[in-house]
């Protein structure tokens, strides 16, 4: 016998279900008047330093159908690569946003400041990216992924460099489609399944 290891185990996840909006974005579900406003309606307030961009996309299931009931949360640094709470962080960047796929077409839109490169603990730099968390009916665990940008230098990013099948790197890179506009689609299954993270 050995000494007991008195560690606790993380509480298991369960699907957020089809009614996640009631709890997280109540006005989207048609529940009004309980909270003064929904939480995390925008990751910026006022005029942040840097470039304000819009990212549009959809989450597709294995049949190619865009999910109408997904909810997203994004978390990111400001244009200088600092997270809210850091002494030098841009006060106009909260960094957190909650948004839902459109009920009819399944598209989402995130308007935010383009993040800067973020230093890793060991000093290496991570290419600019936005962390994305996806929950929906049918997803038993929330899915973590990242949005990188095709007009940034991603070559030395420590996470992208770990993807052995290099064509899959493209699944994490938003494509510039116009002035301050990007497209980022997520595929849950199929040949171009998005790289999801355990991080």
């Amino acid at each position, binding site marked *: 016998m050995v000494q007991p290891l*008195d*560690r*606790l*185990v*993380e*509480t*298991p*996840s*369960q*699907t957020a*279900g*089809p*009614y*996640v*909006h*009631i*709890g*997280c974005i*109540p006005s989207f*579900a048609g*529940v009004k*008047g*309980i909270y003064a406003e929904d*939480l995390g309606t925008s990751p910026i307030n006022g005029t942040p330093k840097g470039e304000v961009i819009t990212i549009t996309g959809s989450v597709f299931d*294995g049949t190619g*159908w865009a999910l109408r*009931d997904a909810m997203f949360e994004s*978390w990111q640094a400001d244009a200088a690569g600092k*997270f*809210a*709470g850091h002494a030098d962080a841009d006060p106009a960047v909260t*960094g*957190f946003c909650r948004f839902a796929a459109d*009920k009819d077409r399944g598209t989402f839109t995130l308007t935010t400041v383009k993040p800067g490169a973020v*230093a890793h*603990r060991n000093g290496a730099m991570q290419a600019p990216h936005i*962390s994305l*968390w996806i*929950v*929906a*009916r*049918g*997803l*038993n*665990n*929330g*899915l*973590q992924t*990242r949005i990188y940008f095709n007009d940034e230098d991603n070559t030395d990013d*420590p*996470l992208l460099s*770990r*993807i052995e099948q290099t064509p899959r790197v493209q699944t994490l890179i938003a494509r510039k489609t116009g002035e301050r506009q990007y497209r980022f689609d997520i595929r*849950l*299954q199929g040949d171009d399944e998005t*790289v*999801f*993270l*355990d*991080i």
Partner: protein
Amino acid sequence: MADLGPLVPRNRAAHPVAYDPDYKTSVARSPKWALLSMESTPSEETGPRFGHQVLGEWDNNLIMNYTRGKAAAMGERILLHGRVLDEFGRPVPHTLIELWQANAGGRYRHIKDSYLAPLDPNFGGCGRTITNENGDYEFLTIRPGAYPWQNRGNDWRPMHIHISVFGHSFGQRLITQMYFEGDPLIDKCPIAATIKSRSQLDRLVAPLDMSKSRPLDYLAYKFDIVLRGRRQTMFENKLEGM
């Protein structure tokens, strides 16, 4: 703030499987390839913080918050309380907990819920609070009803409350569901059954807690939540070569 180390990697065996044919929606929505595992970075170790200024007076009282104190929701009144801890048993203070649930008849106030049970004019179905310095939280609510859903021929969800917790790092983010002690539908539920470890599923079943029940007013259920921890060793804070 202390220089905390990386997040403890998730034990995926403690969580549900992604693909489970008995939960039909998971079939086309579950990723097939392995997740990319990596040590956490500041992007996962930091996260949004919410202070008491986001909370309104009635936010953790689902019995009264839809009518702002004017009329009570229908149903069996309960106190839901518990503690948020990390894997090392340390309390997680000042973290936002949100919940949502069906009314006493099993109907959600959502544009897409068309179950024939009626809406309760005095029940909205969401609430939120922030843990205190010891990681404790409390909600007053009503016990939600079980409801049928389209899956296999005749599937019913056990009584449950959906719970969302932030912790202090984006990598700790968790959404789960709590069930009620003694509900026979738990063992028939394909969503509960996506958790393959019986002891882990049992951790989602809140026991009746008579010590916190208030006579002639409400029953109480206790639901503790454990989030990922952060590794802290003396080595982590040491300078190179020391």
